[in-house]
């Protein structure tokens, strides 16, 4: 009994009270800041990028392919690429994830996700999601779990991971979708009653990431179904996910 009370006192308050204003650790690699003026097109960045996310002249980074490893930043002799700790990276269109020198992070957040009226009406106050891990490394899966833990507590917004597709309003896909998982992924989606949404969480789900050239994948799902929300990251930080979904819901 005594121990239980001590535990309760020690635990204290763990939750982040304002997730919208919370900042991630300064070392976190989020939104990349690019500088064309100092770039000499030496090609170091494109050479070291493990997933072909960087292109030069003018400098562009596709956050849907980027693994946020920072190798390009370290390889650049002129500091033309700097990852900032800005974490609100979600977008509702694939092409919006490609950023260049002119992209301002705060404006990006406003433009990249446009809250649609019908989404707000249907799911604004309650969104139940089903998670499908399809070839993931368990990084995004652990972070999606963390969204519901005592620190991030996404359930307070009515956003919840549920145990059956029949109870869900949509699915969250993590992983690059392996051939062996392609059938189960589509089957799960079809078991979710309409109207439903699809969220692609993490670089692997969005583009295949480091596995994009692997013959063991089957990404036909993405040609067949429209993705409603892209949440980049490797792995996705819980605050990136929660803020992305909140914006998507118009909140």
């Amino acid at each position: 009994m005594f121990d239980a009370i001590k535990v309760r006192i020690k635990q204290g308050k763990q939750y982040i009270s304002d997730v919208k204003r919370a900042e991630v650790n300064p070392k976190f690699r989020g939104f990349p800041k690019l500088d064309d003026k100092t770039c000499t097109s030496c090609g170091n960045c494109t050479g070291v990028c493990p997933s072909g996310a960087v292109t030069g002249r003018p400098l562009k980074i596709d956050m849907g392919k980027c693994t946020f490893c920072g190798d390009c930043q370290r390889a650049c002799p002129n500091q033309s690429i700097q990852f900032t700790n800005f974490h609100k990276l979600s977008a509702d269109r694939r092409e919006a994830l490609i950023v260049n020198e002119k992209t301002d992070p705060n404006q990006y957040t406003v433009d990249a996700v446009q809250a649609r009226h019908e989404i707000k009406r249907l799911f604004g106050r309650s969104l139940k999601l089903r998670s499908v891990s399809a070839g993931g490394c368990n990084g995004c899966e652990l972070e999606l779990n963390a969204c519901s833990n005592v620190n991030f507590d996404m359930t307070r917004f009515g956003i919840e991971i549920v145990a059956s597709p029949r109870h869900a309003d949509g699915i969250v896909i993590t992983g690059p979708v392996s051939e062996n998982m392609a059938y189960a992924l589509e089957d799960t989606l079809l078991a979710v009653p309409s109207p439903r949404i699809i969220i692609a969480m993490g670089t692997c789900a969005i583009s295949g990431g480091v596995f994009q050239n692997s013959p063991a994948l089957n990404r036909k799902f993405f040609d067949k179904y429209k993705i409603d929300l892209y949440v980049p990251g490797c792995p996705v930080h819980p605050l990136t996910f929660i803020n992305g979904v909140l914006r998507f819901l118009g909140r």
Partner: protein
Amino acid sequence: MSWAVTGNNQTIELASIPVKTPAELCTEIIEQCRRGARPVAFFGHKQSSGVRLFVILANDPRSELMASSATFAEGEKSYPSITSEIPAFHLFEREFYEDTGIRPEGHPWLKPVRFSHNRADQSAKMADYPFFKVEGESVHEVGVGPVHAGVIEPGHFRFMCSGEKVHHLEIHLGYQHRGIEPAMADGSIWKKSKLVESIAGDSAIANSLAYSSLLESAAGIEVSARATAIRTLALELERVALHMSSMSGLCGDVGDLTGNTFFGATRTYVINSLLDICGSRFGYSLIRPGGVNFNIDAELSVKLLKTLEMVRERVFLIGERTFNMPGVLSRFQHTGIVDDKTAEQINMVGITARASGLKRDIRADHPFGFYRLYPAYKLTLDSGDVFARAYMRYLEAKRSLGYMIDLLSGLPPGGQLLAERGSLKPDSMTVSMVEGPRGELVHVMITGANGEAVRYKFKDPSFNNWFGLALAVRGEGVSDFPICNKSFDLSYCGYDL
């Protein structure tokens, strides 16, 4: 000489590895294993004609590895199975068969492993997995997965039960298969850091440490003491993080919500320490061949020490509370037992093997990194039940935290963090083993005539331990499966590759 003797993080010439006929090799393997050796790697390498089978056995008391090989000519499609004599080979032989189509004759359980995309028999389909059948009036089956009820990786479990009692559990994996092994041998091996980190996110540090140590050995690169210390610290952080997450899940599964949230919040402190060091909660980008990308300066060192002291206090507090609760103990004790004999037979490794009384820990048996200078001691428990596996996590977390606090207090002074790359020794084989959060990770690389990687083989600890879970639930109620599963806490993607 029948075996080439090598060690952890050592490179040997391919020419020094004996080449036998398959039958000779099998006889020698059986002889060595009867004397106490155990397999750590067993894989085929396709050659211009035929296949060369490499086997690496570990002699733990002598900290030695023994390598040998055999060649199969084109069209030679079988050999006498080792498994019926030495069960530890059961999954290694299944994997070899799936990859090459060479059949181990007399294998008692020759089933698919992961339906890899480059499997020898392309007609084998996932939907036709040959499940074991139990028949009888009261027998029924419970199928779960591949998509599970929480946020969990995919895998299919099929229970054959009578009433509530499980007779047999069949674990069918392969859904996470992304073709990592062939991707390692495609293009420059030095550019694979990110791929290696993506094998299993919760073991990213362990895998990148094995990969980097391997390349450093093969290219003769010296890593500074400071970089080695930072790597070792990160590995222990990863271990504590996984133990906290397993304990959180275990508490949740027996309805102890205080334990669930407290262990969960404690894990957050641990992974946020990794974020402090390298900008990723999973330690991505920290370790690269040659050293580390990030330093721990004086200010950060003080901050980390403070956090780890606080985490240790939290772990003590919640551990003593949890393991004194009758409600928790009654579910944990005598549930899902794997005895030491079984664990040894099926070659279990890591924390789950230590909970069954096997004194196996790569940090002590085949020391690497900072463990060579500041040893880690082996802890074991005998009961082999859920309690032992859970309590072991508590004990190891405490020990790891103590280790890290000592390490941080005497961090070796500055030196080069990241050494220059070199060129890999041609026609050689290098083995690197790391004790990751779940146990022994094995990386093996074979280089070609120009020093390029022609074959890269992984073995995750979960490869050894999934079968242990299947045996643990035999005779238990189906409702005890979640705690048995969580107490093992195995990796799907590490197994599926």
